[in-house]
Every structure is written in C-alpha cells, then in structure tokens.
C-alpha cells in the first residue's frame, strides 16, 4: 500500500545550474531522477511531496560537480504479502488472469480462483460464476489478496 516517508539522496549538480535558481534546479533534477523509479526496500516512488532539507554541497575533486545530500518526503507504493488491494484485469486466459494495480503486475492462477467460477473462452474470455452473477473479464475491477511479491530495480511483480 502507500506510505509517506522521508528518503535521502545525494544529488550531483553541474555548475551550469548554479546561481539564483540553484535550489529549484536541484529539486527538479531530483524529481526527474526519482519519481517513477522502484527500489527493493521502499517500493515504487509515486511522487515527491516536499523537500525537508538540503545539506551543504561538497565540491568533488577533479570535476566541477557539487554533491548535495537532499532529504525529501515522498509517497511510495509497496505491495506486501497478505495485503488486500484492488486491481484492474488486463488479460484473462485458461491459466488464470493478469491484473495491474498501478505499476504492479499481478497474476492470479486459476487454482486460486473460487471453484464456482468457470473459464469461458471466446471473444472476451472471462471467468463467470455458475449463475452468471459475477464476471471477471478484461478491464473489470477485482479485489485480491497478495500471496507473494518480488521487487527488482525496474519493476514490481
């Protein structure tokens, strides 16, 4: 689920950005670098909400770059095992269905779909209950429980 946490990052800035707009440049570079990325520990960074603190800049020897340690607040999204969340179905087939919850790709095997739901193939493959009251097909919303997650540097599964 979502968390609002404080993270720290060392930002390197090229001297051309120095001057009156130094802080703004720093903040925009931070946003460009960090928003939309994924880390194993924190999950997916959705948005930066504010800058808490920008430390003193240190000039690197040999180049003109300056390193600023920046503490910033951001909203992160990390799914946990056992968590219940809602997702949108992207593909349905005989093995189960695939869904997405934002950046997270989810697979629900047909072993874990209630037994009274049967797979119907055809133009719009779907899982339907025997009385036809509930139908899971592409673009429908489902609520599901996570049984396992894996995060790597580029994606969450």
């Amino acid at each position, binding site marked *: 689920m979502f968390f609002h946490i404080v993270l720290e990052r060392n930002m390197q800035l090229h001297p051309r950005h120095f001057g009156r707009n130094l802080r703004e440049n720093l903040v925009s570079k931070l946003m460009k670098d960090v928003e939309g990325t994924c880390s194993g520990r924190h999950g997916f960074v959705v948005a930066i909400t504010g800058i808490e603190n920008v430390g003193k800049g240190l000039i690197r020897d040999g180049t003109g770059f300056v390193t600023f340690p920046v503490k910033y607040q951001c909203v992160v999204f990390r799914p946990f*095992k*056992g968590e219940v969340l809602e997702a949108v179905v992207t*593909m349905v*087939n*005989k*093995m*189960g269905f*695939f869904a997405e919850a934002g950046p997270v*790709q989810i*697979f629900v*095997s047909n*072993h*874990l779909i209630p*037994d009274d739901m049967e*797979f119907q*193939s055809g*133009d719009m*493959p779907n899982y339907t209950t025997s009385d036809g009251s509930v139908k899971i097909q592409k673009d429908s919303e489902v609520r599901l*429980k*996570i*049984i*396992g*997650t*894996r995060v790597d540097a580029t994606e969450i*599964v």
Partner: protein
Amino acid sequence: MSLVTDSPVHSSSSDDFAALLDAELEVGSSGSSPDEEDVEADGDNNNDNNDDDDDDDDDLDSQRNKRCKTEKLEDLEESQGSTSQGLIEDKIVIHAELSLKKDICTHPGSFGQMCILCGQRLDDESGVTFGYIHKGLRLGNDEIVRLRSTDMKNLLRHKKLYLVLDLDHTLLNSTQLMHLTPDEEYLKGQSDSLQDVSRGSLFMLDFMHMMTKLRPFVRTFLKEASEMFEMYIYTMGDRPYALEMAKLLDPRREYFSDRVISRDDGTQKHQKGLDVVLGQESAVVILDDTENAWMKHKDNLILMERYHYFASSCHQFGYKCKSLSQLKSDESEPDGALASVLKALRQIHHMFFDELDCNLASRDVRQVLKTVREEVLKGCKIVFSHVFPTNFPAESHPLWKMAEQLGATCSTETDLSVTHVVSTDAGTEKSRWAVKEKKFLVHPRWIEATNYLWQKQPEENFPVSQGKNQ
C-alpha cells in the same frame, strides 16, 4: 425390511428399524446430521482449498476456511465419541486426514519466480516458459498436462481442434525494403493503408523496414478455420515481427488473441515444438511450409506450398524464375493453396467429430490425417522411371514415400496393373511402355502438386518431355 437393508449407510444397525431411527435421531441431536453432509462437501472443499489455507499464512480471516476448520475438529471428536455410526464417520475421518496431508504445495508454476499457488520464491528452472502469454510466466510439467486435458474437454465440447499456423511463405510473404528489385518498386505506391488493415493485403512497414504481402484467400481462410479450430501462430521470426504480423492478420484479436509464438519462445534452437502449445498432441494440426522445423511432429504436419511473392523470396530458395510481384500477378484466390487446404481441413474436422466411432478422448487427429491423405491417390499403382539415381534404394526416396502416403502403391517393375508411370524423360523404356499400353505418363511434379492440393491432379497438366534431363 428391504428398505433398510438396501440403505448403503447403516450396516450394523440395519436389522432393527427402531435402532435405525435411534441412530438417525442421535446423529440429528448432536447437530451434525446436516453438518455431515456439509462436512463431506466441505471435506472436498478442504482438499481443494487447502492450498488457500497455506496461502493465507496464519491469516484466517477467510470465512469459509474458518468454518471448515472448526467443523473438522467437531467431527473428529464426534467420531471418537459415538458408537454405531457406520460408514459416515469413517468417511469424515478419512477426509480430515487427506486434507491434513495436502499441506505441501506442488508449485504448479511460477510468475516472476514466485509459485503461483503459495507465493514462495522458486528458483528452479523446471517446466516450460510461456513468455508469449505473459512475461515471467512459467508452468511445471504436471500443470501443463492438467491444463492440456481440461482444455481438451472444453474444446471437444465446442467441437474444435487446434491449428498451428506458420507465417512466412504459408500465410504471407515478407521482404526487407532494401531487397526490392527495380521492377518491384511499383509496389511501394500500391501498398494498402495501415489504418484499416482488414481490407488490405500489401503492407509497407516502414518502422521495420519491411514490406509484407498476405496470401490470397487468407482472410476467408482464417475466418472459416476459426470456427473449426483454436488457432496459434508459430513463426521462426522474432517476437516483435510475430506480433506485427498478428496485427495485420487479426486486427480485432479474435483469431489468435495471445496465442502468438515466436522463435524467442521455443525451447529448442531452429526447431519448432508442440511443448509450448497448450493443447494435446492428438488434436493438433500444423500448417507449415518447412518440414524440417517439425522433426518431432511430422505426423501432425500438413505441408504447404511456399508462397513466393517477392523476388527476394525466390532468390532465397534458389529459383531463377521471376516472382509473382515481378510478373504483376498473384496466386488464384479460389483455387490456390489455402483454399485447397481449407477443404482438406474441413474433411479432417468432419471425420474427427462425426465419423470416428470411439470415444472422444481417444481419437487422434494424426490418424485422421493419415486416412484422409490415403484417399487421394487410392487405387493408383505407380512405377518410377529416370527419377531416382541409379543404385538408390527406391523405397526411401521422398517421392516414393510421398506417393505411398497419398494412398498409392509403388513398384519398381512394370506390369499390367500399373496405372501411372512417373518419369522425367519420355524416351526411357518404361515411358515408352506406358504410352504403348495407354497408361498415364506424368512428370514427378504431378505427385508433388497432388500432395499440396490434396486432390488427384489432371494428368494432362504434367506431360513429360523427350530427351535431355530436366
């Protein structure tokens, strides 16, 4: 009392009706009579849902699981306490034991290296990757077998078999833009719009530096075949190419949906296999122009005549003649290869579902294929002349085997029962004998054409010329 003795439940207390009533009432008063039915049902549910129990870790917030577990405990107590409850009690105990045994997950498959059933991290590489369905999906062999048989039942109910289609030279012909010859340049102006793909047949794909021509009749073919078969694309091209071609052939994703297999999905290099196809081998028909790609599944294969539209394609296979695009012509739509194959497929489908006597699960489409093939040249007896190199074992020549597959009998010596002499030179002894005895004298291409078109070809179209070697 026959009523009581017939009852399967009460064996010990069946003599006395009063005892029978007592037993029933005892069961009823302890509140487990309706529960017994429930528990039997839930016992079954337990077997199925036990994997869910594992998934929840220690989380018992699922209502169904809670109820099951408490009832299981109740019944275990009851079965120990009560006396003459007969077979029902035994059944409950057995069910409880069975469900306890199933705590271990069988890991039927993995998604992103996690088991799809219990979520555990799995690092082994057993089973087959199904990357064409979704990235990261991998299924174990048992699961594949299970899926194949359930899908089979489903398809047979809808009266459909599986059809695996090759792309290049079977359904279409592609060429790189840089390989276009000067007399093919006119095609660039004639290509169809990519906006409304369902009407066109010649497409220019600039972003892939390619031009593609769909084989005549292909759209009708796909439409009609989709009613009899669940279709797969299996190409030796890479995945982006395969997906682009699928978009051209099937813009509404109604024929193939996610069933597009490319060489990136195959398990063996340079070989195609049915292991990545989720269908029983006994119900798959393959349409491909290359026999060598299907070494293990030759019995399921229908060989297609190659479609050479572009000059580069003819060149690739070493043909010196002009290609269809250079001649500004095309394969005939109603009489072409796809139309004849469609007729053959219809025959196969009809024979499989309507004519075979044995039960559905044991029918084999390979048998049907063999039978239909053998009808084509039934009754013909063939002798070959000047076709095989000398000292070559005639029976192992591909033409001999092809003729036999088509139902003809082949022989090395002429006699009066021979109907056809196949020769490349009309001056040989056997050829002259054929003309004298009024037998058909045909070029070997007659056998090949018959093979591709699934129909005995008119012999007059394949004359043999005199003299020099062809």
